[in-house]
């Protein structure tokens, strides 16, 4: 069913009787050409582009719970392409371009809102690094602008510019950055993929891979064996757990990242502001909640919840930069499992097992990557060659010393 | 003798005292400090010297409030020794002589700011500063903890209403500010 202005008006006037489920609830078939494990943003996007862009007919997405229940439903909804390194920037810029046309493409309003993102600068060394980064963005065809303290003050008069421990010395803005209604991304891709014939199978947990003679033949699931020509894994924080079923060890750790939302407030923050020196970033949702976060808790965890010290640390950063937020109230906190890779950058690659493909290591930056991740993974699955913007995301880059380390933190996942 | 005049950790020529209704915060500028770490294989000999010096070897989380030298445990096989600066200006050299090959001695006099917190509101104040279980600590308990993001030692002294706080000297001003604002809160 296509959503249109006419349809919306008609249903409103006739008691909404005509709306049908956004996606089907099919029983799994015994064999698919391509099976995607993971009904999160990346898995659903992969299926969507496989069906739509790469004309794959027999595709299934297997989700152990309900689609969209992982990180796509528990993030801070930011999109941006303000990366530094050659291995990353073209990919994230490709992603941002896909975001820009996504709603018309999948006929679902995900409330993509390019109200801009601003990275605050607090030291000369940081300014040098941000100039290098801004230049890299522009050289890669993205947009970037350097703002002065005065320009920032004019736009955000309530930022702490007078009594700050680390005074604001400018900022790097990307005006095309912004936010998206995160749940709607999962639902939009699911609905779109379903419309192109993809079977989305919920409550179907993969319990093992059937691998014979170095080739993956399909997956064992809680709903029985499902054969597959190719299997693509896109399970983010559960990657190590899943791939261990294929006897693989991955260059990543699973960490908890907390995020926070305040009570609804009348609009104060148009775009996204990041305060790197204070481990804090914030935006305001269309509903009025301040959505904010900071650093990882710092220890391996699959518990989907964090602890008080980081809550306090994040709020300290918030109060340092927005002293007016003291009287706003934190409404809810939650935690997601981050697939923190060893250099802070993702992997989209074949594995050493024939027919088994992997997508993961998104760290805390997977949401903004969703469209490009799906597109590039679909490209790899359909053509067996990496997409031109994702050639660096190889498994063997650690062995070869070709890390893509934006932060320069080395092989210490909790510092990326 | 040289003519260089030392200043206190708070930058003054005299130690600072802040008195509130129920608590007093005193900058203690009179301490000489040196750390002692046992050399590998000489642990027993090192303990013997410590015992001679302090009367006993401070165990983990403990201080020996001995006079004139006192000491507390910093880490495995590592202790901080303190003594009045007037009489022990060259404490590190003196300790080096005493410990000889049994321990590595490092001068720490300059590294710390020391505050004595006394008075009936000491417990309330401490509760709002750091996570040590102050009401359960007894005289001679010495814990390292975070105060205002600074790694500090908190030592419970003989008097029931007295703690000594050693913090990093370069942040003496920030630590003092934290103590004063907290004193305002609880006094």
């Amino acid at each position, binding site marked *: 069913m296509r959503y249109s202005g006419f349809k919306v008006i008609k249903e409103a006037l006739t008691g909404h009787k005509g709306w049908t489920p956004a996606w089907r609830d099919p029983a799994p078939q015994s064999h698919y050409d391509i099976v995607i494990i993971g009904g999160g943003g990346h898995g659903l996007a992969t299926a969507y582009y496989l069906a739509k862009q790469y004309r794959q007919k027999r595709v299934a997405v297997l989700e152990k719970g309900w689609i969209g229940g992982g990180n796509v439903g528990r993030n801070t909804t930011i999109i941006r392409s303000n990366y530094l390194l050659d291995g990353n920037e073209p990919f994230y810029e490709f992603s941002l371009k896909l975001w820009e046309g996504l709603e018309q493409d999948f006929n679902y309003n995900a409330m993509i809102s390019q109200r801009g993102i601003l990275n605050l600068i607090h030291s000369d060394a940081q300014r040098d690094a941000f100039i290098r980064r801004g230049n890299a963005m522009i050289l890669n065809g993205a947009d970037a602008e350097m703002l002065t303290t005065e320009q920032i003050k004019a736009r955000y008069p309530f930022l702490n510019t007078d009594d700050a421990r680390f005074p604001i010395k400018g900022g790097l803005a990307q005006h095309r950055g912004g936010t998206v209604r995160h749940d709607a991304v999962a639902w939009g891709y699911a609905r779109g993929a379903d419309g192109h014939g993809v079977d989305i199978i919920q409550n179907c947990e993969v319990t093992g891979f059937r691998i014979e003679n170095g080739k993956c033949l399909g997956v064992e699931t809680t709903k029985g064996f499902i054969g597959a020509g190719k299997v693509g894994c896109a399970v983010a924080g559960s990657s190590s*757990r899943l791939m261990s079923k294929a006897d693989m060890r991955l*260059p990543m750790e699973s960490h908890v990242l907390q995020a926070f939302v305040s009570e609804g407030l009348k609009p104060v923050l148009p775009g996204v502001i990041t305060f790197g020196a204070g481990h804090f970033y914030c935006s305001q949702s269309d509903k009025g909640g301040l959505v904010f976060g900071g650093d990882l808790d710092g220890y391996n965890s699959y*518990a989907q919840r964090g*602890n008080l010290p980081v809550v306090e640390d994040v709020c300290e950063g918030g109060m340092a930069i927005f002293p007016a937020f003291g009287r706003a109230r934190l409404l809810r906190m939650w935690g997601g499992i981050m697939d923190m890779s060893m250099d802070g950058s993702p992997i989209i690659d074949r594995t050493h097992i024939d027919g088994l493909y992997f997508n993961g290591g998104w760290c805390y930056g997977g949401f903004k990557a969703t469209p490009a991740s799906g597109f590039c993974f679909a490209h790899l699955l359909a053509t067996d060659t990496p997409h031109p913007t994702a050639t660096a995301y190889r498994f063997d880059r650690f062995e070869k010393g070709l890390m893509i380390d934006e932060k320069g933190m080395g092989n210490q996942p909790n510092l990326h | 003798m040289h003519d260089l005049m030392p200043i206190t950790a708070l930058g003054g020529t005299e130690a600072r005292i802040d008195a509130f209704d129920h608590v007093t915060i005193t900058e203690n500028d009179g301490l000489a400090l040196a750390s002692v770490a046992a050399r590998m294989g000489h642990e027993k000999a090192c303990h013997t010297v410590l015992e001679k010096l302090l009367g006993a070897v401070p165990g983990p989380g403990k201080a020996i409030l001995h006079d004139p030298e006192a000491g507390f*445990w910093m*880490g495995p096989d590592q202790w901080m020794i303190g003594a009045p600066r007037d009489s022990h200006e060259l404490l590190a050299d003196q300790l080096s002589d005493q410990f000889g090959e049994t321990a590595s001695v490092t001068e720490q006099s300059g590294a710390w700011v020391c505050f004595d917190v006394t008075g009936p509101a000491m417990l309330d104040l401490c509760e709002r500063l750091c996570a040590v279980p102050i009401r359960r600590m007894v005289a001679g308990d010495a814990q390292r903890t*975070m105060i205002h993001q600074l790694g500090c030692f908190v030592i419970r002294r003989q008097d029931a209403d007295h703690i000594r706080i050693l913090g990093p000297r370069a942040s003496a001003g920030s630590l003092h500010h934290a103590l004063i604002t907290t004193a305002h809160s609880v006094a």
Partner: protein
Amino acid sequence: MIIDHPLLGPRDSAEFTYMGDARLIDRPDPDAETAAQDFYEYGYLRGNPAGWHDELWFHEAGDRSWLVVTRNTLTHEISKVQLARDVARSRGRSK
């Protein structure tokens, strides 16, 4: 979280800095023929179990001990805490 320090008793984990998989103690032999591969695995393929995990924590705001903490990554329960130095010796490390 609370880490029950073997020498100091229960301490808030906020006093510690985390490094991860305790197998980082097992630094490979740099002279082995397989050193390149060994160091790659040592440096990059760490344990990431959903369940019990031996991991290194540094008592940064405390006694500066490295600890090996056995912790469940699903529940955060901690079952054992040892001084890393003792663990290292028990695994044959020396100088």
